[in-house]
């Protein structure tokens, strides 16, 4: 169980980091004059709103969060079922004794 959580979190993290990383590098030219830029030229020009992959970024974020929510939801349900089964077993043992 622990390994499943770790692997799913790691995969989601990598996906999110990749998606968002692309978004950051697409906007790298927005550095302040005093900040070091990759090509040493650091224009601080205004970009049009369309330059930012807002929809894609929020999409990746939303998708990743939904996967986390649903995995947690199913895990929780499984935990509750296991708890119920254990309790039922205990009750049955108590009645047979």
């Amino acid at each position: 169980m622990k390994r499943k959580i770790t692997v799913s979190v790691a995969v989601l993290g990598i996906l999110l980091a990749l998606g968002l990383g692309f978004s950051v590098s697409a906007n790298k030219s927005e550095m302040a004059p005093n900040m070091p830029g990759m090509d040493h030229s650091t224009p601080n020009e205004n970009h049009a709103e369309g330059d930012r992959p807002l929809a894609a970024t929020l999409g990746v974020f939303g998708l990743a969060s939904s996967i986390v929510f649903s995995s947690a939801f199913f895990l929780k349900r499984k935990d509750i079922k296991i708890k119920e089964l254990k309790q039922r077993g205990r009750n049955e043992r108590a009645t047979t004794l």
Partner: protein
Amino acid sequence: MNTIQDAGGVTDESNESKGLDLLKFPAVKAVMKSKYFPKVFQIPVAAVFGLIGYELLAGPSSAHENPGTALMWVLWWPLIPILFLFVGRFWCAICPFATLSDFVQKLVGVNRPVPAFLKKYGIWIIDASFIAITWADHVFGIVSSPWGSGILLLLITFAVIVSGAFFQRRTFCRYLCFLGGLSGNYARTGMIALRANTDICQTCEAKAACFNGTEKAPACPLFMFPRTMDSNANCTLCANCIKNCPNDAITLTLRPPTKELWFIKTPKIEESFLAMAIMGIVLIQNVTMLEIWEQILTTVEKFTGITNTAIIFTVVFALGVTLPVSFLTLSAKIAATKNDENWIKNFARFGYALIPLDIAGHVAHNLFHLLAEGKSIYYSVASIFGSNAIGPTALVGNDTIRILQFIILALGLWGSLYTVRRITIRRYRAPNIRRATSRPYVVLIGSLTALNVGLFLLPMAHRM
């Protein structure tokens, strides 16, 4: 034997928790016990951060015009270390990410226990992520780009969602938050200390209600047990334990700033390392904001032939972070020849003494942004409501800012030197051992202060 044991002949350690108990005041007690505390702060802070996030991602793409950038980096970031000094980690109690974590937990929380590796290496992960984020800020221009800041917020939000969905309480805040690590270190200097009256706790039959929570309030979010707590590092002053304690054993005492640093029972090398790394980061932050930074880049380019600024910055950054750590190592090695402890113990013990100077450097640096660019907060926030107000951004003149910066540095210097003195008095009996041990640290603190003064004398560039 020159050293004395922590639990042994120490005279003033037992006084650590004594002081004016604020919970003796009915008004303070009523506030802390109220079910609306700290919710009354959490909701507006979460709303403001929601606005900041929206503006960063969807607002003007120029930092100069973006209210999110102004609110986050010119107002919130400079105020944070000042808050730590006065009210410890209270920010963490009202932090929007903590609120989100609680919300996710209520919704789908699986409540798995904190993984062992996080408990063991959490602070190193915090150290590494703090260094990595600062590096990324410079290379990718996160602070100066609203979009970059927005992405950072999204990444943190995602990490908080994962932590809240799968793990108990506020695992992220305790073991992973880079700001939590910083605040844990800084909060040790805080003037308010929450502790438990152990005499009352010994007779308690409430089965650790303060730790486990009751129907009155949830469990301690940062997994602390007030009965054994001797540090502010992991207390957010959320008041859950105050509400849950059936015996009113919790005290909320006022104490002089930095006092906790004099009595660290089990110094940890990773916390001392973080203190030194922060010192390096603040120095680098200062250097890159100086107008001479461009000249430095050109000079390095000329000598090495490397034109890639990211590579040059990475080298300078690595040097900047490593230097204070190396200097403390050197001081610890010299001190170790004068007392009975090895250099690692010396490093861990005296690294905490640098925290007051750390905060002073941090506050002094950010004071420039707050006071020289403060009006930009008004202009950019007013722009949300359609105002076209524009004008100079400074709240006060540069000379005033510089004087304030030097006053703050002087206080930090005094705090660090005094902490070294108190640690040596507490730790070593013989006066000659005390003097010999403190000498290398005094030289280190003096040198780092001089370096800070030198940097603050040079003209600095604006964030907005």
